[in-house]
C-alpha cells in the first residue's frame, strides 16, 4: 500500500485579482521507501500541492476537491467536520507522521532559541520520552545527520551554524519522530554545489536507514537524476507526465518534459550541445486555459489542445503522460 496517495487534488487562492487555481486535479502516490521527485518551474503548483497535503495553506487558500490519504488515513480537509478538528489532527500529524524540510532553514529556526530546545520540543510533543531521553535522542539525531561534536553544538544558536549545517539541523528535526513521509521543498536550492551534494547524499542515506518515503520538490533536473526513483513533472497546476527516473530522462513523452531536458546541458559531455529553450513564459493561473496549460509554448500545439485537457495515456505501470499527441493516430510525437 502506498504511504501517501493524493487523488484529484485541487487548490485555489482567492486574491484581489481573482481566483488563482494553483493546483488542478493532481493525483499521485508515494510508495514506501522511495524518493518521488516533483519537478516544475515557479508557479507550477508544486509547493502549493505540498502545503495542501501538510495543511499549511495561507489563509486565502482552500482545497476545493480531492482526497489525501496518508497511510490509510484520510487527511483531506473535507473529511473533517470542522476546520478546528482538521487543524487539531494536522498538528498531531505534522512533525510526527509527516515532516517537512524547507528551502530556507532560517525561516524555520527561531534565532533566539538554542538548537537544543528547538530539537527537543517536537520530540517531547510527539513521544512519551522524558526530557533527559529526548535530549539524548536529539544529540543522537544530530550525529546521524553529520553534525560534528553534537553534544557541544546542541547548546548553540542557529546563527552559529552555516547554511549547510542549518539544513542538517532541519533534517534532524524532521527525523525526530521517525516520520513515514518527509516532504523536502527545494532543500538544496539555497546551498552551494558541494554542500548540496552532501545534503542530497544525507537525504538518500536517511531514506535507507529510517525507511521513510521522501517527496523531493525541485527545479533542478540534475538533482532529480541523482536522487529520485520516480518523477512527476508539473506544469500550470497539473501533472503532465509521471514515470520512473529512467522513463523521464530516456524516453520522455510530453513536449514540456522534452523541452525541459533541452534546456539543460550535461557538464560531462565533450562538446557543448546547443540549448533548446522553451519559448515564452509560464501560463497565468488566474485565467487557466481550458485545454492543455502548455499550449502557448508547445511546438506541437494543435487545435484540440486549446479547448480540451488531454487524457492520460498509460505507457507502463509507472509511466503516464497527458498529451493529445498520443491520441493523434496513436503515434507519440
Amino acid at each position, binding site marked *: 500500500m502506498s504511504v501517501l496517495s493524493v487523488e484529484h487534488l485541487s487548490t485555489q487562492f482567492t486574491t484581489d485579482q481573482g481566483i488563482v487555481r494553483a493546483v488542478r486535479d493532481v493525483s499521485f502516490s508515494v510508495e514506501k521507501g522511495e524518493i518521488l521527485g516533483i519537478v516544475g518551474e515557479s508557479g507550477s503548483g508544486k509547493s502549493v500541492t505540498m502545503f495542501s497535503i501538510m495543511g499549511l495553506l495561507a489563509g486565502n487558500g482552500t482545497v476545493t476537491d480531492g482526497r489525501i490519504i496518508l497511510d490509510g488515513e484520510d487527511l483531506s480537509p473535507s473529511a473533517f467536520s470542522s476546520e478546528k478538528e482538521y487543524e487539531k489532527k494536522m498538528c498531531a500529524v505534522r512533525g510526527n507522521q509527516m515532516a517537512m524540510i524547507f528551502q530556507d532553514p532560517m525561516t524555520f529556526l527561531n534565532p533566539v532559541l538554542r538548537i537544543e530546545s528547538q530539537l527537543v520540543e517536537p520530540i517531547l510533543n510527539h513521544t512519551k520520552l522524558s526530557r533527559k531521553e529526548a535530549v539524548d535522542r536529539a544529540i543522537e539525531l544530530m550525529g546521524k545527520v553529520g553534525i560534528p561534536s553534537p553534544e557541544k553544538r546542541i547548546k548553540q544558536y542557529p546563527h552559529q551554524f552555516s547554511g549547510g549545517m542549518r539544513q542538517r539541523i532541519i533534517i534532524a528535526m524532521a527525523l525526530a519522530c521517525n516520520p513515514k513521509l518527509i516532504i523536502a521543498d527545494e532543500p538544496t536550492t539555497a546551498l552551494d554545489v558541494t554542500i548540496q551534494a552532501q545534503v542530497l547524499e544525507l537525504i538518500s542515506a536517511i531514506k535507507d536507514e529510517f525507511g521513510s518515503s521522501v517527496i523531493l520538490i525541485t527545479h533542478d533536473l540534475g538533482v532529480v537524476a541523482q536522487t529520485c526513483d520516480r518523477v512527476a513533472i508539473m506544469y500550470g497546476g497539473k501533472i503532465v507526465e509521471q514515470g520512473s527516473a529512467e522513463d523521464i530522462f530516456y524516453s520522455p513523452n510530453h513536449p514540456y518534459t522534452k523541452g525541459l531536458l533541452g534546456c539543460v546541458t550535461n557538464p560531462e559531455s565533450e562538446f557543448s550541445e546547443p*540549448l533548446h529553450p522553451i519559448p515564452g513564459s509560464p501560463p497565468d493561473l488566474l485565467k487557466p486555459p481550458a485545454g492543455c496549460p502548455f499550449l502557448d509554448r508547445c511546438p506541437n500545439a494543435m487545435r484540440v489542445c486549446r479547448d480540451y485537457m488531454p487524457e492520460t495515456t498509460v505507457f507502463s505501470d509507472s509511466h503516464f503522460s497527458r498529451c493529445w499527441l498520443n491520441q493523434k493516430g496513436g503515434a507519440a510525437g
Partner: protein
Amino acid sequence: MSEAILRVENCCTWFDVTRGLFAKKQIVKAVDNVSFQIFPGETFGLVGESGCGKSTLGRTIVKIYSPTSGKIFYKGEDISTLEGARTKAFRKQVQMIFQDPYASLDPRMTVGEIVREPMDIHGLHTAKEREERVVELLQIVGLKPDHIRRYPHEFSGGQRQRIGIARTLALDPEFIVCDEPISALDVSIQAQVINLLEEIQKKMGISYLFIAHDLSMVKHISDRIGVMYLGHIVETGPSHLLYSKPLHPYTRGLLSAVPIPDPRRAKERRRIALSGEIPSPINPKPCCPFATRCPNATEKCFQAMPPTVEVDGRQVACFLYEEGG
C-alpha cells in the same frame, strides 16, 4: 593572440569590517591577488561557491568598488586613473547585467523609460531616434513594442531579465559583466537567456565576463573559465579541458558535486567528497585557501601560498603541480 580587452593584474579588493574603535582590525579579503585576461569576443566564465568573491571581482571591474591594490586595464588603460570624459567613455563601453531581475529595474519607471535611460544619460540620438531604438532593442530580446508603457512588476522574471539585457545593449557596449544573470530564473527561462546572450555576442562581438555558480551553464557559454575559492583564482583554462581534466583538487571536487541530468551516469560516477565548508574570509591565513578541505593537503599547504604554475596551457595554483613537487 590579439591584445586583451581586459587585463586584471594582482587585483585585491579588501573590506575593512572592524567593529568598534579599539577592536582588532578585521579585513575581509573578498578578492585577493587575482590576475587574468579576457580577449575580444571571448566569454570568460568565473565560477565558485557563494562568498568566494566572484561578484566582488565583477563589481571591481565595472568600478563599483575600487581595488585595494593591483591594476585593472581596459583596452590598455588603467581604469582607476580614469577621470571625467574618459570615465564616461568607459561607462559607455562596459556594462553589467545583474542577478536579480526583480531588483535591477527601477519599479517606478516604465519599460520604455528603463531601456531609454542609458541613451538619455549619454545624450545619444534625438528623441525620436531613441524611441525607435527602444522598440528595436525590445524586439532583439523578444519583447513586443506595446510593452513599452508597462511597469517592470507586471512581467515575469525571465521577461524582466530580458528588459535588463535590452538596457545594457542600448549603448552598444563592447564588454559586459554578467553577474549571475540566470541564477534567479527557471530552468526553461535560463536557456532562453543564455541563447539570447550567445546570439548577441555572435552579432555584435561583445566580450563577456560570465559569473555564475551553475557550473553546467558556465561550461556551455564560456570559452575559458576561472575557478575561484575564497578570493583566489585557483585554476584557469579552456572550458572543455577544465571540465574533462580538472587539475586543482577544488575544481575536481566541485565538478564531481555538480548533479548531471542523466540517472544512469549519476549512479555510476564517483563523487569526490569535499568535507567541511568554506572557511571565513575574515583575516585569512597566508596559506593555500583550500588546505582545510583538500584531500591532498600536505604540511606545506598550511605554511605557504602555492604559486600559480602553467600546466597543459592552464594556470593552476597548487603545490601538486609545482616544479619537482
